């Protein structure tokens, strides 16, 4: 099965009943597969919208009817979605956005892989906010993490992003599809509670449109009733701080990762397609003194995991961008952080990573 198809199947297994999208290489197979599958599923709806702005708007609208709702796109479409992604953050709308990354900026390299949107996903819309972003490195993870994304979206009432890339999206591998996947729906809004009054975890209960509750939904700064209140500094500060902290405070709970060889001196930190090359080097070639941290959750960044390597001399960060996450890692550690940046569309080769370890002082 192809990565993009596995992502669509993971969404369906999680009970996704709304897909609004606009086809764009290299994500098109996600929409194509949903268009084939959804008309046969009772209560499910597939709409090809007129563009990506409309797509994300439809996804947000469908989410407010209580549907598990998603879209899939790539760089240029992702850029178009940015404004409404901020709206989904501000209105605390649970939804899933799949981004099969290609080379940018602009229309760039439609058919080639990249990881250049990994900062845009966190910072691309205006204002302060936090989101959750997951990165698959196999076809199995495309299935598993897409299904998981819906649970995180519902639990934290936030857009959740599957940040895959062309390599993983178009690769075919055998996967195991479980009989059922875990489903965590949003906390219900208690009787008499205000719709944006946070629980102890900072997340409000959720009541869908049409369930008899009065729920104003606005992108403006709002009070706990959902009414606009745009000139009160304290109101804005407490709202935005809550939107950030409900996710950042749970970062170690949200963290999904693998660690191999905590005793390593040269530690790769990786996510997405480069994980495959890292695993080849560490597990198959058994390069001495090396280990890795694979991040399936990229945002919120689980910086505590970096302290799990007591003997580390350098973190080596292979990315298909010019060192975006390397800079984030650098903020949290005192040892050198060495980016292995590769753009142009090809995945890092094992030799390139072996060279990077040598350059860092390893293999002497």
């Amino acid at each position, binding site marked *: 099965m192809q990565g993009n198809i596995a992502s669509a199947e993971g969404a369906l297994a999680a009970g996704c009943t709304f897909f609004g999208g606009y086809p764009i290489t*290299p994500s098109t197979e996600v929409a194509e597969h949903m268009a084939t599958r959804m008309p046969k599923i009772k209560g499910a709806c597939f709409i090809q919208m007129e563009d990506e702005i409309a797509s994300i708007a439809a996804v947000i609208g469908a989410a407010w009817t209580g549907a598990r709702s998603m879209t899939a796109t790539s760089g240029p479409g992702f850029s178009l979605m940015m404004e409404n992604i901020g709206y989904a953050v501000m209105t605390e709308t649970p939804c899933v956005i799949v981004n099969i990354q290609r080379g940018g900026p602009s229309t760039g390299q*439609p*058919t080639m892989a990249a990881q250049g949107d990994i900062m845009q996903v966190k910072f691309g819309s205006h204002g302060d906010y936090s989101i959750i972003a997951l990165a698959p490195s196999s076809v199995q993870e495309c299935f598993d993490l897409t299904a998981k994304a819906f649970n995180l979206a519902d639990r934290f009432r936030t857009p959740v992003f599957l940040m895959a890339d*062309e*390599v993983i999206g*178009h*690769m*075919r*591998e*055998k996967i195991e599809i479980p009989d059922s996947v875990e489903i965590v729906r949003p906390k219900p809004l208690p009787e008499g509670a205000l719709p944006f009054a946070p629980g102890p975890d900072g997340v409000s209960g959720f009541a869908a449109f049409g369930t008899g509750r009065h729920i104003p939904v606005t992108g403006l700064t709002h009070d706990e009733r959902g009414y606009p209140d745009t000139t009160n500094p304290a109101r804005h500060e407490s709202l935005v701080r809550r939107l950030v902290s409900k996710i950042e405070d749970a970062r170690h709970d949200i963290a999904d990762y693998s660690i191999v060889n905590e005793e390593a001196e040269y530690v790769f930190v990786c996510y997405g397609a480069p994980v*495959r*090359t890292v*695993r*080849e080097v560490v*597990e*198959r070639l058994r390069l001495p003194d090396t280990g890795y941290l694979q991040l399936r959750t990229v945002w919120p960044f689980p910086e505590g995991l970096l302290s799990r390597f007591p003997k580390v001399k350098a973190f080596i960060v292979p990315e298909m961008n010019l060192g975006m996450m390397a800079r984030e890692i650098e903020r949290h550690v005192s040892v050198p952080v060495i980016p292995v940046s590769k753009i142009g569309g090809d*995945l890092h*080769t*094992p030799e390139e990573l072996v060279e990077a370890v040598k350059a860092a002082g390893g293999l002497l």
Partner: protein
Amino acid sequence: MRHEIRFSGFGGQGIILSAVILGRAAALYDQKYAVQTQVYGPEARGGASMSAVIIDDEPILFPKVRDPDTYVIMSQQGFEKYGKSPRDDAVMLLDSDLVHDRPSCTWVGIPATLSAKKDLGREIVANIIMLGALTTATTVVSGPALEKAILDSVPKGTEDLNLKAMRRGQELGIEGGSS
């Protein structure tokens, strides 16, 4: 045992489908691990097309084929772009009428397109003939696994045609190998 197989030809010959069928045969019916990748681009239609499969008894980590031990080449341009420098112990299956050059490694000539047209009346199954030849000229995939994967993958109503193509390929794989 690990095999890296590269397919190449021109867009429209079913180069990518061939790799998908082979990967499926290995992963689902030969109980191996398999990863299929391709050169993915708009230039593939009519131009040189390439796809690849890694088959292994162990999980496959780095997913890209880099040093194939097996080639299936179905056009001269595909040979020039993707088949020119095989390793010495590689085996290359060539569509003998469409590829004019011959490699330095062991090669097996399969008149797949000619046979598809002449023996089966449908040029479109040439890729299935090449796949059939792969089961007798190499050890990368078993005949029964390939047969099941073909039946999974081809449109309804074309099963007989495709199985005939596979069997013709198996014959040609033996003949070509002994010549």
